[in-house]
């Protein structure tokens, strides 16, 4: 059973000006998040992903549709009940949102106090969490004394304090430099692996999805326009918006401008062959071309690794008789995707 099940969820806000049109932030979204998933939600700013994640822990009420968490319908529940449910859902933020008036230990203890833990229970739990995020020596520091990466680690420790089953990460690495981003992503991976916490990652950066997500949903204009396994969406994005996101991280597919340059520089036909894990190997393809007596040259390309599965695109300049080339390409096309530049 899905841990989070969204069915036809819509969130609208009243028109910003009188007589204007209401704003549809989330538009008829249906999405299942299974236990153990690291579910990435990607989209440009204003695509509705931050609103969507706030519907999951009911910080915002949905306008219509159904939201189930752990089999429990959230829409229509009174605020008091929702607060209990939020104890079981952690959340981390782009700006960390630590309490500047409290020490690191005080920040991590806060959700435990809300949950009604006693002082004697809180202290060892805080120590354990600090140990997990590697900040045991910072217990008495204040947030302003920490670096961005350390702040986010405190945010993660705080979000995990009550052992939630679900962690919502709202652009959690967007304010960090690339190196620190990787550190925080590694930590999130550990949270998923060691504690089995399901994670929803909101981001506008495709490399974040690439490094930790197992599933991905692409949002645009409040709608989920494509979703599924990260590998599938990355290797064969169906939607043009998804393709643009994928292009920001996937190496090897020449842009139209690059294709024009390639054609100028190389004789023969320019053909892009796309490999996916499990398809024919490169060796088979090259063997086929060689057998047909074709002269070919690798002019552009790249192989990507997503969650341990590889896919990639190789662009070749092929010289030879047209008929022989056609025959060889047709035979290859039976096994892998072949696109010839017009």
């Amino acid at each position, binding site marked *: 059973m899905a841990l989070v099940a969204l069915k036809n969820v819509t969130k609208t806000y009243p028109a910003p000006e009188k007589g204007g049109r209401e704003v549809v932030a989330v538009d008829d979204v249906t999405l299942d998040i299974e236990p153990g998933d690291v579910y990435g939600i990607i989209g440009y700013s204003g695509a509705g992903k931050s609103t969507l994640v706030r519907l999951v822990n009911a910080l915002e009420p949905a306008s219509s549709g159904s939201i189930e968490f752990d089999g429990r319908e959230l829409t229509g529940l009174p605020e008091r009940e929702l607060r209990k449910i*939020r104890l079981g859902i952690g959340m981390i933020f782009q700006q960390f949102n*630590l*309490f500047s008036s409290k020490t690191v230990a005080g920040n991590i203890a806060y959700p435990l106090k*809300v949950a009604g833990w006693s002082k004697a229970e809180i202290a060892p739990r805080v120590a354990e969490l600090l140990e997990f995020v590697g900040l045991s020596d910072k217990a008495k520091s204040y947030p*302003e004394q920490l670096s961005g990466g350390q702040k986010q680690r405190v945010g993660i420790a705080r979000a995990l304090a009550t052992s939630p089953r679900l962690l919502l990460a709202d652009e959690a690495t967007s304010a960090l430099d690339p190196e620190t981003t990787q550190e925080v992503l590694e930590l999130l991976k550990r949270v998923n692996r060691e504690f089995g916490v399901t994670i929803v990652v909101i981001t506008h950066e495709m490399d974040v999805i690439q490094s930790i997500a197992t599933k991905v949903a692409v949002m645009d204009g409040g709608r989920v326009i494509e979703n599924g396994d990260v590998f599938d969406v990355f290797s064969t994005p169906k939607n043009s918006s998804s393709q643009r996101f994928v292009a920001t991280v996937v190496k090897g597919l020449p842009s139209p401008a690059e294709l024009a340059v390639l054609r100028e520089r190389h004789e023969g036909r320019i053909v892009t062959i796309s490999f996916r894990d499990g398809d024919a190997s490169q060796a088979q393809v090259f063997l086929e071309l060689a057998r047909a007596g074709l002269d070919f040259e690798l002019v552009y390309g790249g192989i990507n690794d997503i969650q341990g599965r590889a896919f990639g695109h190789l662009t070749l300049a092929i010289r030879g008789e047209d008929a022989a080339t056609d025959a060889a390409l047709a035979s290859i096309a039976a096994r892998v995707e072949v696109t010839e530049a017009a």
Partner: protein
Amino acid sequence: MDRLFELGSEFWVAAYETFYMVALTLLVGGAIGLVLGVLLYSTRPGSLLPNRAVFNVLNVVINFFRPIPFIIFLAAVQPFARYVIGIGIGNDAMIFSLSIAASFAISRIVEQNLITVSPGTIEAARAMGAGPVRILRTVVIPEALGPLILGYTFIVVAIVDMTAMAGFIGGGGLGNFALVYGYRQFEPAITWAALLVIVVFVQGLQFFGNWLARKVLRR
């Protein structure tokens, strides 16, 4: 100068009265102002306990009283002071009026400082399952504590100013002392002496407030 020494004991009594009025006004007005300020902050649309009716009533009432010049306010409130605490003149009556005026001023200062607390921090507390009253008590007020202390320091200085005016309509204190023994008896030295003590008093308060705020803000 000789006149000042003659009045020595009365001078120090007046100084004590000023201190007494300021302290009690700060205590009573400070507490009521804090409650009103928190209510203003939390009932505004989109805040933790949005309630248009409460917010609008408070807003209008406070806006009604705030612009009244204090010396006229004192005269206007006098009948109520007589009714509530049994007497219309003297320090206790003044504390009554001072506290009302101070509450309204403090409520605005509290509201302004609470608004500066980052909405993200409040959202984080909400996401952890905290309720609105807990958030006000354990997040909003602690996060705004530094600026709140500076705001209260500012208002204490204003209260010192107000006690001097209270001296004009039946209150005691250094303001009254300066008027009665200095101004009306053509003894500028006495006026200056009263002024000097007030300045020292205010400086002391300001230093203390700054020190406390720095300690809370850790900078």
